[in-house]
C-alpha cells in the first residue's frame, strides 16, 4: 500500500511520550525489539509520525532510515492518522467474490476520498484491508471495531448515519 507523508501537525503529549519510553526501556537489548516497539507506538499515538520514529531511532541507537524503512514496509503501520470514524472494507477473496469492490467504490464516492485517505475534517478515513477472517459474513466492513456483514450498497447510507 502506498504511503504518503502526513500534513497534519504532530500533537503528542508528554504522557504518551513517557508511556512509549517506558515500553522501550523494557525492550531495549532484546532481539528484534523494533517491531513490538513500533506496534506499541502506533497503539499509543494512533499512527507513526516522523517525530515518533525519530524518538524510537534515538532510543534504539538506529538510524531514522532503518526505522522508516521498517515502518513503510508493513501495511499495518500508518504514517497518517485515522479518522474519528475509521472505516475499513475487507478485500479478502471471499468478500471480493461477493461484491466488496462495489461497497468500497460507493463509500469512496460518498465520502469523497480514495481508499487510504481521510476527509479534510478528520471525521472519516477509508481503507481497503486484508482478509479479516469473517468470511461467513462476506462482504464485510468495520467501523471503529464494529463489524457490519452481508453488506449491500443500499445499506451504506443507513450505517453511515450512525457515525455523524
Amino acid at each position, binding site marked *: 500500500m502506498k504511503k504518503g507523508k502526513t500534513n497534519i501537525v504532530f500533537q503528542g503529549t508528554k504522557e504518551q511520550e513517557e508511556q512509549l519510553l517506558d515500553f522501550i526501556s523494557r525492550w531495549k537489548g532484546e532481539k528484534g525489539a523494533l517491531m513490538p516497539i513500533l506496534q506499541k507506538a502506533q497503539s499509543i499515538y494512533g499512527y507513526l509520525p516522523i517525530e515518533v520514529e525519530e524518538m524510537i531511532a534515538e532510543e534504539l541507537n538506529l538510524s531514522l532510515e532503518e526505522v522508516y524503512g521498517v515502518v513503510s514496509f508493513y501495511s499495518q*503501520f500508518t504514517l497518517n492518522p485515522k479518522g474519528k470514524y475509521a472505516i475499513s472494507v475487507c478485500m479478502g477473496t471471499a468478500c471480493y467474490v461477493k461484491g466488496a469492490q462495489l461497497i468500497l467504490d460507493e463509500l469512496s464516492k460518498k465520502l469523497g476520498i480514495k481508499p487510504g485517505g481521510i476527509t479534510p475534517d478528520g471525521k472519516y478515513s477509508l481503507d481497503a*484491508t486484508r482478509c479479516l477472517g*469473517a468470511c461467513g459474513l462476506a462482504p464485510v466492513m468495520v467501523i471503529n471495531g464494529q463489524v457490519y456483514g452481508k453488506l449491500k450498497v443500499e445499506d451504506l447510507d443507513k450505517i453511515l448515519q450512525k457515525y455523524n
Partner: protein
Amino acid sequence: MIRSHVLVCGGTGCVSGGSGKIIAVLEQELKKQGLNQEIKVIETGCFGLCELGPVMVVYPEGAFYSKVRPQDIPEIVSEHLLKGRIVKRLLYQETVGSDSVQSLNNTVFYKNQQRNVLRNCGAIDPENIEEYIAFDGYRALGKALTEMTPRQVIDTVKRSGLRGRGGAGFPTGLKWEFAAKNDAPQKYVCCNADEGDPGAFMDRSVLEGDPHAVLEAMAIAGYAIGSSQGYLYVRAEYPIAVERLGIAIRQAKEYGLLGSNIFNTGFNFDLELRLGSGAFVCGEETALMTSIEGRRGEPHPRPPFPALKGLFGRPTILNNVETFANIPQIILRGADWFASIGTEKSKGTKVFALGGKINHTGLVEIPIGTPLRKIVEEIGGGIPNGKKFKAAQTGGPSGGCIPASLIDTPIDYENLTAIGSMMGSGGLIIMDEDNCMVDMAKFFLTFTVDESCGKCIPCRVGTRRLYELLEKITSGRGELADLDRIEELATYIKANALCGLGQTAPNPVLSMLRYFREEFVAHVVEKRCPAGVCKDLLTYSIDPEKCRGCTLCLRECPVGAITGTVKQPHRIDINKCIKCGSCQEVCRFGAVIKA
C-alpha cells in the same frame, strides 16, 4: 452442581456476528432465573459452520441453536434451560428430528468430515488450560519427553508422512531431521501463524479454538531438534487469536509445561509471541525470520536453508500452525494411525476455509483425497440461489482454479499441482457463473503487486506489467496478442523471481487462462464480459416495452440515476449509473437489461 453446559462460539465469525452480546445477555438471564449455579456458559473456539453464526450448543441434549440473536436468549433460557423444552424454531433445521434432537455429527456438514486438527475447536474453553489437559492435552509432550528419544520423535513424524500444511507440502519429519543434525549453541523453533491468503482462516481458528495444541507441538519440536526457544509469529489482524495465545502461554508457564525443567526431565523450552504487521511476503520462511529479527520482511535466496542458518543465523525450523496442530496426536496415536488416513503420498486430513459462493461458508476438515465435488455439493451444501458452480480457487493468490470439468478430482498435493493449482494453505473459494475469471485473475494480481516486497525485479516489475495487461483487457482495449504476452511474461516470472511469492504470483492468471481462455477471448474480441462483471464492458438500460413504471428501481437506485414517472417507462442515466445492479435485482418484470 452443573447440570447443563452452554457452549457459545467465540470464533471471529461469530464474534463479528455478535456472540459477545449473546453471552452477556445469557449470563444476565441465567442470573435472573436463578440458574447461574447449575448452568455453565463457556465461550469456545470456532464450530466451523460460520454461515449459521452466531451458534451455540446446549449440552447434555446437544441442541444446536443457529443464527442466534440476543432477543432470542430469554426464550431459550426460560423454555429450554429452565423448563427443559427445546426451542425448536431456533434449532439448526437439519438437527430437528420428528421427536428428538438429531446429533450435529449426523448433519451433512459434519458427517463427511474427519475433525482431527479441529477436534477441540468448539468443544473446549480455549482460555482454560485444564480443559485442554482433560482432552489429553500435554500428554504427547509428556510421552515424548519421558518415553522417547529425540531421534524417535523425528522418526515417528517422518513415518507418519505428515507434510507441511502451509502449502508447499515439504515432509515435516525431514525438515526436523535436517535441523537436528546441525550442531549449534542455540537453535530455534518458529511457528508461521501469518496466515496471509485472503479468504483463509484455518490457522486463525486453530489458534482461537485450541491454542495449547500449537504450544505443545512447538515444545515437542524443540525437544526433537534440540532447541530451547520458540517464536510464534502471528498476524496482528487476528486480535482474538493473539489474546488467547498470550493467555495460553502464560498458563502453560504457570503449569510448568513451558519454561525450564519441563516434566522434571531437564528439558527447557520457552516461547515468545511476535506480531506481524501486515505483509503477505512474511509468510515466506526467510522473510518471516527477517521480520522476527525486527527488520523489513524481505526474503533472501536459499541455500543456506533455515535448518542450517535461519533465525539470528542459527539452525531453525519453521512450521505452519496446522502442521504443528497435527503433531500431538501423531505422537499419542502413532505414525501408523496418521498414515492410515489420506492417499498414498498425502497423509492425514486437511482443513479448508470454504468461502465465496457456497451455502455453508465455514471451516471443514476432510481426509486428504476427498473429491472436490463432495466438499462443494455435500459438505458445502451447494451454490446459493440455484446458480451453477464455475470454479474453485485453492492456494489463494499463489494457487490456481479448479474448473467444473475437474470437480471430481481427489484433493491431494500431487493432483492439484498436476492440474495447475496447488494445495495451498487451505483457502477454498467457490465461484459461480456470476464471477468473471479475467476479473478474478486481476484481483489476485492486484494483491501480489501490492504485496511484492520489491527486492527482485521479476516480481516487482513483472507482476505490475501482468496486471496492466489484464487491466487493458478488462477495460476493452485488449488484443489477442496480449494473451500470448501474458503467458510469456508469467512463465518468465515463475522461473526468475527470488522467493515463493514471486514464483507463484502468475499461477492464478495462468490457470484461469488455461481453463477459461474463451472468456478472455470474449473480452478481447467481442469486448464483452460474459459474467457481467467488468464495468467498462457493460451498461444497464431499461426495456421500455417491459417496464411498467412501478418506480421500484427508481427508489432503490443509490445514486439517483433513474428517472421516470409512475406508470411510464423509466430511464437510466448512464453517466450517473455506478452499475451496482440493484435496479436489476428489484425489478419484477425483467425490464432491466445488463449488456
